[in-house]
């Protein structure tokens, strides 16, 4: 309950309505094209899709289809070469340095390899989710405001790591590290979550636990999710919407229930399941 209230307040601070009802999609991508160098091959060849407020949207496709590139374009860890990315009504590609940092703090991201700072404590890793809101002086001495520390402790309890708060991140197991990653992303009070293969460094059982936890938290905090994932079965179990990529083209876009075997065959261009 408490999280929800904080979250709603966070929204109002950012000048957004506390309610979920929004006529426009949270994220709209139009004709997105990416190539890493001017002469190099095109990774994404004109992708269009939109993510709504209550979507848990999976991006699936074979290795090299451009899933990771697509996700990273949204918060500009990768620069798109053409197209529009409209997030919360702003064109992400047109933001300058400061505007981009302010945009990024509204986007939570969970990574394949967790991307924790190994030599820092679990707590400091979670608190680093607030860096976008933390001034230079506070970040220099790692002094975070009381409400941030309280929120971090609550989130750590929520992901089941209350007994590991002071441990160093590299003392934890893979599944535990990803839970730290989840807590760090939620620390931002994100308005959208980007998941880049959150489970592919984990074993099948832990993968399911982690996805279930993310889904639960996303629903609780009412955050839309864009998740790229290569485990089709897990995607169908967890997500309500599937986008299928193949070789930089979108091959499928629809509800998870509507997905048929031939759609998968087309995305993977081979037999799956």
């Amino acid at each position, binding site marked *: 309950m408490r999280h929800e209230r904080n979250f709603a307040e966070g929204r109002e601070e950012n000048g957004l309505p506390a309610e979920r009802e929004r006529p426009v999609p949270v994220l709209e991508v139009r004709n997105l094209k990416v190539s890493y160098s001017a002469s190099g091959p095109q990774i994404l060849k004109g992708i269009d899709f939109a993510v709504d407020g209550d979507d848990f949207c999976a991006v699936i496709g074979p290795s090299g289809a451009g899933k990771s590139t697509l996700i990273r374009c949204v918060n500009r*860890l990768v620069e798109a070469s053409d197209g529009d990315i409209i997030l919360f009504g702003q064109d992400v590609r047109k933001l300058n340095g400061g505007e981009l940092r302010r945009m*990024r703090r509204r986007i939570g*991201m969970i990574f394949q390899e967790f991307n*924790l700072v*190994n030599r820092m404590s679990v707590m400091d890793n979670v608190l680093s989710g607030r*860096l976008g809101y933390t001034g230079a002086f506070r970040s220099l001495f790692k002094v975070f405001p009381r409400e941030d520390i309280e929120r971090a402790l609550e989130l750590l309890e929520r992901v089941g790591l209350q007994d590991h708060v002071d441990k160093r991140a590299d003392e934890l197991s893979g599944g535990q590290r990803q839970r730290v990653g989840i807590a*760090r992303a939620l620390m931002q009070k994100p308005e959208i979550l980007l998941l880049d293969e959150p489970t592919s460094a984990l074993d099948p059982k832990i993968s399911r636990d982690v996805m279930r936890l993310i889904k639960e938290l996303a629903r609780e905090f009412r955050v839309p999710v864009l998740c790229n994932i290569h485990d089709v079965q897990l995607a169908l179990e967890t997500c309500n919407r599937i986008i299928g990529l193949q070789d930089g083209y979108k091959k499928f876009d629809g509800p998870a229930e509507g997905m048929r075997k031939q759609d998968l065959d087309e995305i993977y261009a081979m037999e799956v399941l």
Partner: protein
Amino acid sequence: MVAAVGLQGAPYLSYVERKRRRRVNNWVIAACIAVVLGWCIWDTVMVDTDWARMGGALGIIGTLERFFWIDWGLVPSLIVPALETMMMATLGTLLGCVFSLPVAWFGAYNVTPNRYIFYPLGRFLMVLSRSIHEIIWALLFVGAVGLGALPGILAVAMRSVGFISKITAEAIENIDPKPVEAIRAVGGNQFQVMYYGILPQILPVVIGTIIFEWDINIRRSAIMGLVGAGGLGLVFFRQMAMFNYGGVTLVVLAVLVLIAIGEVISHYARKAVI
């Protein structure tokens, strides 16, 4: 049958031949090295040395003997210079760390502000610091700020920059980029990316290097006095000038003690960090 044996013999013979050639090659190379070495010894030691002045084996021992009558009476007057040497090493190392910060930042290829101006500048400063001997640095600073411990501190600092900043820059270049990406993704600014994403990763290497450099700087500080920059070296220089060879030996022993102390401290300090 015979033909088959011949075919089996051919690889063996060519192997033996290759081996013989390699052996001849090695002998030729060894002979060349021996000739060059012999020429070096002849030209530098045999011709250049004033054999008559040495005065045979007894003469050498007699000269060295003067150093064995250690002048213990000098001990009280060594305490302050010894402390000064330690302080010079410590302050010089700390100041060197401060100078190293921007140099390492400029000279690390992945974080340098500009790859065409600042990166070469950073690398140049690293080379400059190391290619000038600490005595030369001390001479420069004695000329600039006068006699005393200050020029020694500055010289030690300048000489330390090269090593500390080079190792730091290399540590920055070898970091895991993933945490950096995460800090950028939460909306962290450049400073936060460096402080949270990079610094924790390089800290053990950097602190280990600084301790090591401090250890070396004790040695460097001990000779700073030879050019008038204070510390034990100055006492050494004075004892030498007074032909008090026993005093010279005592200063050398004092330096030895300092270095041993430094060794012990840096051993435990490094253990505590890593």
